């Protein structure tokens, strides 16, 4: 795949929407093609997130550990979606497994390469960072709403629903947008 093709693919993702063609070129140079077979782990819970993934084709399942350690699927990630983008700003352990359901193809952007662009005060990095910061804002509003909606609930109220909301929220740490 040549660089122009990579740029054309990246251009379709909202996270790169604010970039000029030249800036997109910067990202196409650091984007590493990745491919996963069905059943293969794209990332595993507990490992430090050191990159963001953009999914060009295929479908993957997001799985968290439930309260008793059981595997709980909490969603799927498909074509045109991005995940792990918070890893570009905060290297935390992944909160969920992401497992390829079909063959998955896409790109990964390493946190180190992004940090390098940021270090050079490259506008492309900051335009993407603004998108990520807005994602953080959405999450924070969401978590606060959940917390302050919850504190007025009494013990025993809809425990199953509440627990699921919590685990879904935790999934946010893999950074699915």
């Amino acid at each position, binding site marked *: 795949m040549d660089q122009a093709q990579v740029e054309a693919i990246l251009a379709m993702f909202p996270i790169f929407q604010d970039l000029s063609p030249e800036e997109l070129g910067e990202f196409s140079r650091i984007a590493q093609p990745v491919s996963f077979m069905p059943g293969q782990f794209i990332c595993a819970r507990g490992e430090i997130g050191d990159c963001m993934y953009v999914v060009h084709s295929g479908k993957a399942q997001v799985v968290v550990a439930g*309260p008793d350690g059981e595997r709980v699927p909490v969603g799927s990630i498909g074509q045109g979606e991005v995940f792990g983008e*918070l890893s570009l*700003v*905060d290297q*935390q352990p992944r909160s969920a497994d992401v497992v390829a359901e079909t063959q998955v193809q896409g790109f990964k952007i390493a946190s180190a390469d992004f940090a390098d662009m*940021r270090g050079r*005060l490259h*506008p492309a990095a*900051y335009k993407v*960072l*603004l998108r*990520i*910061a*807005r994602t*953080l*804002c*959405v*999450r*924070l*509003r969401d*978590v*606060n709403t*959940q*917390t*302050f*909606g*919850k*504190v*007025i*609930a009494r*013990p*025993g109220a809809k*425990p199953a629903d*509440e*627990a699921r909301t*919590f685990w879904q*929220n*935790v999934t*946010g*740490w893999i950074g699915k947008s």
Partner: protein
Amino acid sequence: MFKSKKHQTFLRSVDLFKDMSDDELEQVIDALKERKLKQNEVLFNAGEASDSCAIVMEGRLKATVAQASGRVRELAVFETGGVLGQIALLDGQPRSATITAAVPSTVLELSRKDFEKGFQNGSPYAYKLLDIFTRVLVRQLRTANARLGDLATAEQRAANPRHPGDPEVQSLFHDINNEVGSIRNTGIDLSAMGVSGRRR
């Protein structure tokens, strides 16, 4: 000039601004407007459109939300060096909380217009402000997630049929209902010290 010197000394004392060069800091100071608040004075109201964010220079402010029941809950407190209002500044949505001065306070306000202008011009100071906002957001989200996690754990324990009115569980729930509330925000980087959140 005197005012600007005062602001410079202050910002230099805040961890979050340590990566800024003197030039960048000077540009930030040019864009900042000092505002004094009396005790109980409102800086901004939940639901309002946002046009600024602020950093606390002196005093203490609190963020509160009114719940559906009408009860007012404290979400966070902001002390010297604490950054507030950056969420609405960045995402353009209405304010999520009301910010009130708990004691007489002084804040430095940055308008959304100035931030956006700097950002669009590719000014390093605006980029570094975004670095700061991002760090603050990451820290707040981590703390808020931990708080929600505590709450979910308490709820699961409370809902466990083996311990239905377990006094210990009831008491834990009581604690969380009453004290999980507030996140403390200062200019000191708690996360860098390995502290994920601090309760008052």
